[in-house]
């Protein structure tokens, strides 16, 4: 089974290995300065030095991500649904949303600190801002794209009230869009972890932990191999989460119109 998977993904695996190889060659022979570019071996060494801390750091950052994502879901989906279903709601919310959306999560840090203090909640808030808009927009699009035919089919079968139509038709019909929005939101939310954890914060009473937090700590100490290590951790975790969600999308959405092109 493993061999099969390896064989199927051999181009992807080769790509990663080649990248690592190139990095090692460039950093070791061309640049030869651990400040400008630590070598792969130095980063691996840092990994073994810090391996006891890394699972905790990842767990804490994932907790921050989950907090932000959770609130993005409970705010974004209802608002997106309302805007997608009711024209008035769309006109009401749209200008505000379009004004808030371009503000980068980083810019919210001063207010986040004032509102939530230096806590895991201010970190969660920054991630919430990053994760909110993809979910909201995708839910909106999903609802907008609900087939009128299906709505009428439901009405004809006795599903008449708006709330029921939303529940029985619009929501399930929009599910592929929402799921796609969640995948994007997780990606963006994860990118905000570094900004969100800039001030250390509470970290669930565990002290100095968190991928973003440690990245800033090691930056202050000019320990670039460790900075690179945490950057890689961010990247690899992001990749894993994306792949996991793609897998979930494929499996949960088999019913989606037409077949997946890859399956042909």
């Amino acid at each position, binding site marked *: 089974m493993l061999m099969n998977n390896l064989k199927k993904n051999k181009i992807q695996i080769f790509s990663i290995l080649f990248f690592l190889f190139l990095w090692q060659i460039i950093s070791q022979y061309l640049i030869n300065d651990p400040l400008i570019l630590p070598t792969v071996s130095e980063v691996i060494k840092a990994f073994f030095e810090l391996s006891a801390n890394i699972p905790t750091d990842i767990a804490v950052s994932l907790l921050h991500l989950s907090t932000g994502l959770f609130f993005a879901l409970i705010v974004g989906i209802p608002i997106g649904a309302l805007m997608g279903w009711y024209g008035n709601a769309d006109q009401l919310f749209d200008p505000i949303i379009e004004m808030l959306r371009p503000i980068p999560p980083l810019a919210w840090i001063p207010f986040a600190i004032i509102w939530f203090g230096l806590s895991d909640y201010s970190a969660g808030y920054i991630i919430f801002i990053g994760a909110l808009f993809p979910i909201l927009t995708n839910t909106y699009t999903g609802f907008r794209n609900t087939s009128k035919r*299906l709505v009428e089919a439901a009405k*004809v*079968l*006795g599903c008449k009230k708006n709330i029921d139509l939303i529940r029985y038709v619009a929501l399930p019909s929009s599910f592929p869009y929402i799921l796609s929005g969640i995948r994007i939101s997780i990606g963006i939310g994860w990118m905000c972890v570094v900004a969100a954890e800039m001030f250390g914060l509470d970290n669930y009473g565990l002290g100095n932990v968190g991928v973003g937090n440690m990245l800033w700590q090691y930056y202050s100490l000019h320990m670039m191999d460790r900075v690179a290590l945490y950057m890689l951790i961010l990247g690899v975790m992001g990749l894993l989460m994306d792949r996991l969600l793609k897998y979930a999308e494929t499996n949960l959405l088999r019913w989606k119109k037409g077949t997946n092109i890859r399956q042909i």
Partner: protein
Amino acid sequence: MYQLQLKNLSKTFRRNSKKLLVLDNINLNVKKSEFIAIVGPSGCGKTTLLRIIMGLEHPSKGSIKLDDKNIKEVSSALGLVFQEFSLFGWRTVLENVTFGLEMKKIGKEEQMKISEKYIKLVDLEDFKKHYPYELSGGMKQRVAVARALATNPEVLLMDEPFGALDEQTRNTLQTELIKIWKETRKTIIFITHNIEEAIFLAQRIIILSKTPSTVNRIIENKLSYPRDKLAPDFIKLKCDITRHFYDDKIDGDI
């Protein structure tokens, strides 16, 4: 006497401050368990008429009575089968058929019983756990029929239900439909632009003119079931009606 009565039904659409009269004083009476077909050139308003009867649109003038009671909005006494893309893709065949029953808040066990009966009626027992994307066009339409019948409407409206299917499948389903009609004794109002299909299925054929459409002719079809499309009297009737379209300057494609 009559189950469904349409009186002076008119419909005007407003588009960009222009008014378009689509239906002009349609009068029609339908008896219980009758199978009628409505034919006419495309764009003549057949679908609009059906949607008004169903309650998805409101008439600009006139009334609709079901069992002598005015109906103004979607009623569970009526069912509708669309031409295509009307199945809920995220629900299995069985779940599609139970949908109307869920809306009626019928108990789970009862839902299963009724649904399985109609799934059997349309010959899709083996596929009840399948999703629409796994079904052929003909199978999907069968599900649509079962779904519409499950809520036990008195009148079944069908909007060119076989129009998107190939001839082979269409023929099969037409025969099945007659079988279902005989078994369930529902009143069926069937819209099509296919004259042959109308003659095969209906006891009465209502011919609409082009917009603003009125009832041009009503033809009684006394041929006995099951009908044979290649029989001489069938073909004669088909020629009659077809010629009517050329002669009476109905215009437009059928």
